[in-house]
């Protein structure tokens, strides 16, 4: 009985983990698409993982301490010549979430 329960829980855990992995994978490829195409971040930023070579803003692989929150903040509000993708409704909330997830998990990789 105990063993059965253990197996069941392990099984559920594996499924759950696989599911999030799958979800993350999907988010990453959607994020790449937003970065390079929908939002055009690529035109202004180097990001090795995305193969982008823009040189208007900083090379994102060289920016210290980038995380989900800092990317989300700047993508929402913009800075200098960088558009305010959130405030000006260039991207949806969901797209901003996805591209921030993508960038923060791609820098220096």
């Amino acid at each position: 009985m105990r063993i059965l329960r253990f197996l069941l829980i392990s099984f559920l855990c594996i499924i759950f983990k696989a599911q999030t992995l799958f979800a993350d994978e999907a988010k990453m490829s959607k994020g790449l698409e937003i970065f390079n195409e929908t939002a055009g971040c690529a035109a202004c930023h180097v990001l090795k993982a995305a193969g982008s070579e823009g040189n208007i803003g900083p090379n994102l692989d060289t920016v210290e301490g980038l995380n989900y929150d800092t990317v989300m903040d700047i993508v929402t509000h913009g800075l200098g010549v960088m558009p305010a993708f959130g405030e000006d409704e260039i991207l949806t909330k969901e797209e901003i979430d996805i591209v921030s997830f993508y960038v923060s998990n791609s820098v220096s990789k």
Partner: protein
Amino acid sequence: MSKNKTKLNLNRRNFLTGTATLAGIAATASVVPISIANANHSEGKKGLPNFINWKNRDALIVHSDKGIETHRSAIGESLITPNSNIYIRNNMPTMTDKQIGDRKKWKVSIEGVKNPKTFTLAELQKLGHATMATILQCSGNGRGFFKHKPRGSQWKTGAAACVFWTGVPMKTVVDACGGISGDAVFMTSAGVDHEPTGLDPKKAMIERSVPKKVYKDAMLAWEMNGVPLPNAHGGPLRMVTPGYFGINNVKHLGKVAFTSSESSVKYMKKSYRISPIGKKGSQYPSCWEMPVKSWITRPTDETGKVKAGKVQIVGVAMGGTKKVRSVKVSVDGGSSWKRAKFIGPDLGKYAWRQFVLETTLSAGTYNIASLASNGSDRQPELRMENRRGYAHNGWKDHSVNITVV
């Protein structure tokens, strides 16, 4: 996190035609010619980007390839900051030699004067010649101390330098054009570094208006600390607005106009406004005059533990647009203050002065602070909270903790 191997093809055509969302940033992201954009960008030796691989890596803190700060202890050992140690803050990519072309033929047009004219650099060099020292300081120097984490580079003290400029006084140029015409209120300077990017000038042009009176002490500079103005610092020609924040010292200068209203570009109307946290807009003051400020450069937590006994506490102090009059130093977090001595030559009110306080410290930990005054204003204890983390001159955040053994 598994790495995503797919690389989407950057299709320029796709960019240009765009989708509905792209329309919103039309003429910004959509028209950046990638090949030009990347011209001087590849990473060079020593972990510095190529366009500044001649700089001294050890003197610098790299926040990003476009935001590079001078270490606190790499400022102030002599009055003038060597070019190799000077910070980099770029709003537009630095122009390349190829984009600049023959430096002698670089053009700047002067407008809002009786006889508008375009001068080449060679012509300006025949018109007049002067040298002056000023402080170049990013508006956001000290942003790293703000607790609300404003966006942008987290500078502490090192987005500042004291520099010798050589060039022609703006006043000489104005005189050569028959004087300022009627109703001008501002001197408006524009760079051309946005041009190679293809971005919309309204959003990307660095055009800055300052009060007209600034022209009296301003300079069109082609030399920085004895060498031709490096591209990375705005070469071959830059506007120098003494006492005003870095952004007003427009790089890669293409135009100076005396105007009746402020420039309407984003970098004037929206950016560089000192607004309360959570508020923004062009009704708030622009980053213009720098306030009185000072900080200690030695000893600091960067320079390691200090030996008990006689200690020289060294730093730099600036008065903003007025001459700095005095500096006091505290070794007990501001409970008591002693007057420091100015050392080295006085290079005029727009340069900073070095100061030193000799004192004796026994083993222990100390919080050392400096407090400058220009006669009318003195540094406040606390920072003036503001949305973007500009113009910080509070003495408390700029203090350093040292250990004496």
